[in-house]
């Protein structure tokens, strides 16, 4: 079993989830539940201490981004280590996030 640690820091209208360790098939539910608990408009996933992410992790982030986008909320994925960025870029994750952004409803919350 891989290890994942999630620490939560709430600011005004933003929650920062700092993920450390390895995000994979075995622990994506842990991060999903933590994200679903948050109610702020913006949720930031700080990946600076993340060592590994598999395709299930990428799938989770895209799925959450899609749901938040429909709610006119924002998922930001920040400080992605280079090797993880490379893998996400090959899958096309950033292109998909851009397409969500372009389709985001205006106004609202």
């Amino acid at each position: 079993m891989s290890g994942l640690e999630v620490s939560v820091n709430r600011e005004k209208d933003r929650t920062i989830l700092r993920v450390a360790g390895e995000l994979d098939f075995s622990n994506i539910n842990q991060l999903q539940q933590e994200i679903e608990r948050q109610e702020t408009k913006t949720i930031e996933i700080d990946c600076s201490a993340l060592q590994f992410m598999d395709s299930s992790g990428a799938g989770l982030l895209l799925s959450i981004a899609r749901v938040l986008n429909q709610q006119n909320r924002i998922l930001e994925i920040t400080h992605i280590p280079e090797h993880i960025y490379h893998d996400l870029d090959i899958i096309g994750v950033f292109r998909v996030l851009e397409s969500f952004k372009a389709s985001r409803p205006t106004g609202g919350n």
Partner: protein
Amino acid sequence: MALDAGRIEKQIIHAGIQGAGCSIPAEVEGGDFFDFIPLGKERLIAVIGDVMGKGSRAARHMKDLRAIVHTCAGNNMPLLTMMEQINERGGKQLRLARSFATLCLISYEMYNARLISLSAGHPAPLAFSGNKSRILRVKGVALGLLESYQGTEPDTVSLAPGDVVLLYTDGLVEARNGQGQTYGLKRLENITLANSCQNAIQLRDTILNDLFTFTGRKQQRDDVTLVILKRGR
């Protein structure tokens, strides 16, 4: 569990090219797959894919996607049209299941010895000629993430006799040894270059043996799949 439980091997000689592949699931079954699809006497399609996740759920989506790939390939269409149709049919199913899949398609035509490739979120193939290697310039969004396929134009390479093209899934280059180090693309390139005189089956087995030496046959967390294509001399 044995490291290679559920291991699948296939080989083919068609249209002047030899193909050999192997897929080793991390669990009893997995989401990786590969296939060789002969079209007429002059064309060979090779495909490699990786469905998100692991185990039986990923394997179920993989089988559905494989069936769609075979149907689309059977229509003998240009590679880009084939990828668009696969995304249209398979992508919808994957989206509904909140999943996605990466896919790399290769088309080899014997009459002009040209190999064409396209990728949907999959690591680009490596081409080896003499003592040189290059990563083919193909990139696209994985199947199921967008309604229509978005990616680069196909990349084309002319194969000289003896040239090798290698396809792999991320589980191969991300396989780890006991110290947590990954096998890596560089080691994969080096072992291939050093043994490119071998036939496709020998080269496949040489690479896998090198992988097992590196990992110490440690159980891996992701499926490992490798496909070799080699033009006959």
